């Protein structure tokens, strides 16, 4: 039997039917979850800087102690039950989608602790293979020593930093630029 992994194909423009029309997930962590609660506003832009109105953004993250609610994390039994860690939303006409969550803790990594981050998948018409990136938090003191962030050329690290809203500090903004100027760093995972 042929056991080579099945090729990816684009999600196309109608993924809402199967994925988000009835089964979007805006709340990544519940209101009782431990940690600093925040609203994450993501915006997806194309190579001309125009909003991408038909993307699906998925988030996977740890709880406030940096633990994942998943069997592979040996500390999972003690992970916050109010932080399922998963969200997915379609973008709107402005290319925007929003999530309710908490800031995760540091996660163990090779050569040290990884700074607080969210793992992100982007799907859309025109994207043949899932694009994977990460969202970090600007001005977090753990960023400087993060073993993954340090794999990214210094001049491009800024594309992975969510910025805190100057008026509403509970709001964080993150732009995903699929290509061109200030192109977001994407990872081979």
């Amino acid at each position, binding site marked *: 039997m042929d056991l080579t992994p099945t090729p990816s194909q684009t999600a196309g423009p109608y993924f809402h*039917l*199967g994925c988000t029309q009835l089964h979007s997930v805006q709340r990544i962590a519940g209101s009782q979850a431990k940690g600093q609660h925040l609203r994450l506003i993501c915006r997806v832009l*194309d190579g001309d800087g*125009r909003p991408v109105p038909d993307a699906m953004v998925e988030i996977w993250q740890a709880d406030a102690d940096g633990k994942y609610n998943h069997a592979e994390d040996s500390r999972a039994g003690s992970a916050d039950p109010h932080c399922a860690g998963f969200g997915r939303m379609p973008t709107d006409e402005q290319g925007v989608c929003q999530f309710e969550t908490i800031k995760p803790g540091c996660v163990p990594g*090779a050569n040290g602790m*990884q700074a607080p981050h969210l793992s992100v998948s982007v799907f859309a018409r025109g994207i043949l*293979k899932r694009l994977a990136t*990460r969202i970090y938090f600007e001005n977090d003191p753990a960023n400087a020593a993060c073993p993954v962030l340090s*794999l990214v050329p210094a001049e491009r690290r800024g594309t992975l930093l969510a910025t805190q809203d100057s008026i509403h500090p509970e709001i964080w903004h993150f732009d995903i630029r699929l290509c061109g100027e200030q192109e977001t760093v994407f990872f081979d*995972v």
Partner: protein
Amino acid sequence: MKQTFKVTGYRRHEAASQPTSLYPPYRGTVLRTPRQPLIFLPYTLSEVTGPVYGHSDVVASDSDLTRQHSGEPLGERIIVMGRVLDDGGRPVPHTLLEIWQANAAGRYAHHGDDHPAPLDPNFTGAGRILTDANGQYEFTTIKPGAYPWRNHDNAWRPAHIHFSLFGPAFATRLITQMYFPGDPLFAHDPIFQSIPDENARQRLISKLDLDVTRPEWALGYRFDIILRGREATPFES
């Protein structure tokens, strides 16, 4: 605080077995594909864990797309059955599959689809199921129609069903499309042709299977899905 974990990674894809991301014959890729190379991410806990999603709210009727309305949809009733395995041949149990598709006339029940083919009031075209302990799944649905999509002059998509799978980890997330054997549109479809390797393209084509077929009821197609498997040895993370 020093914490270390044994992390077992996932095998990376061979490039030719997956689509070429920037594939200009598929116009939509041009403004939506990164031009900088991807940065190689050694596996950490963040990628070998992943959402355990859909386990609480999937019901049996979700996998029969012909029974979601008061009447039966028009078109050719089919069964799509298969297994989800990893690249070592091990079943991927209890993982969520989501599908969506056009109706028999080639029209999606979606506000963005303005193809002037009829909507079917008895067909939404969305289904979900969890694989069983052997990684098996089965949908009953209607064979979707081909439809035009304006990518180029006289562009038509071969009939297909979209599949979304999570698998056990962030690393195994997959969205793909299943096609039907012998479709004359394969040669003209840049989405299908974006996969360089002919053998890899064949992996997206379901097979007519008389053992899946229900006599006097519905033709059966088999479509097995292979997700990436684990590396042999863990490393310290």
